[in-house]
């Protein structure tokens, strides 16, 4: 049984690719066979975040157009035996993705016994984003606690409810999850940033995970290591929790409170 999960957001720069890389890696760590596909044709980046950019020979569009076999284009992760990356084309325009082609590739992954297919959506609501969500069983909507991101997420939730194969066939809704990223508890406590509860109330769906804003996310991407593999990173631990919840396990929310200030800071501020 293969489950297809789209990682989407509407707005750009909120952490879709970071999330796709970490969730895919986390599922593979838990022993599942996982493919993660970059749908951002022309602006390929998943390969960089996964650290396999120099091993891309064939890409998603090559497979769709019959220029390469799927197994030639799937890049096996160097850390996990059961994790594979399918890169986006860097040279083609975004019209080179076709609905038929995407369906054929997803079907072949199903036949090959993949447990999870993670579709990393481009920003926006154009063709690439539409195709990334069309075949999804579940959706991870990545949102920052910031007005434009929250509004765009609501737009995406509307599209998930109407413009997907499940919606069109009446097969039951795409299961929707929010993943809150770049969360800064100190700013929430100061009333400068919306809280988890605020975002849940506005959008009306529960949060699957909250990823704290942390320097380790940039450090990990600098090195091409999904942040979930950083053993000392709170962001990495928060992604591990999110993966566990995705698998149906209960985990308490962590990292929602600002670190306590020391005595000197309390007296003198800062």
């Amino acid at each position: 049984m293969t489950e297809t999960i789209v990682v989407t957001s509407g707005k750009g720069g909120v952490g879709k690719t970071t999330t796709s890389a970490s969730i895919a890696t986390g599922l593979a760590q838990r022993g599942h066979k996982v493919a993660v596909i970059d749908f951002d044709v022309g602006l390929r980046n998943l390969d960089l975040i996964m650290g396999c950019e120099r091993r891309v020979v064939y890409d998603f569009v090559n497979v769709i157009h019959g220029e390469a076999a799927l197994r030639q284009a799937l890049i096996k992760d160097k850390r996990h035996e059961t994790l594979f990356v399918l890169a986006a084309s860097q040279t083609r325009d975004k019209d080179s993705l076709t609905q038929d082609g995407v369906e054929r590739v997803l079907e072949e992954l199903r036949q090959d016994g993949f447990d999870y297919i993670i579709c990393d959506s481009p920003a926006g609501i154009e063709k690439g984003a539409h195709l990334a969500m069309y075949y999804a069983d579940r959706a991870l909507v990545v949102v920052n606690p910031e007005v434009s991101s929250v509004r765009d997420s609501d737009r995406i939730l509307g599209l998930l409810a109407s413009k997907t194969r499940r919606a069109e066939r009446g097969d039951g809704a795409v299961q929707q999850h929010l993943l809150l990223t770049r969360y800064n508890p100190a700013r929430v406590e100061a009333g400068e940033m919306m809280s988890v509860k605020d975002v849940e109330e506005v959008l009306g769906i529960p949060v699957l995970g909250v990823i704290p804003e942390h320097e380790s996310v940039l450090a990990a991407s600098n090195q091409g290591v999904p942040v979930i593999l950083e053993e000392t990173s709170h962001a990495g631990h928060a992604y591990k929790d999110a993966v566990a919840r995705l698998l149906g396990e209960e985990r308490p929310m962590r990292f929602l409170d600002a670190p306590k200030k020391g005595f000197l800071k309390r007296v003198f501020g800062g």
Partner: protein
Amino acid sequence: MGILDFLKARPKNTANIAKERLRIIVAQERSTRGGPDYLPLLRSELLAVIKKYVNVDPEAIQINVERDGDHEVLELSVALPEGKA
């Protein structure tokens, strides 16, 4: 809160402002979602006609499409200014 913070003016709670603005715009966008594309234009043309007779506020017109069984109902409500009905 340190000693130095007492000297600064207390900043506004902007998170609450963000939440309130989002609550309103999201509700409004959801109410027209899935409805026909002409709704915003219909709304502004109706407003222009009504304004010829009554000076209503642009916010005073609510337009919704509701599904009722197998047919749809176009619901229009206009709040007239007080004392001018």
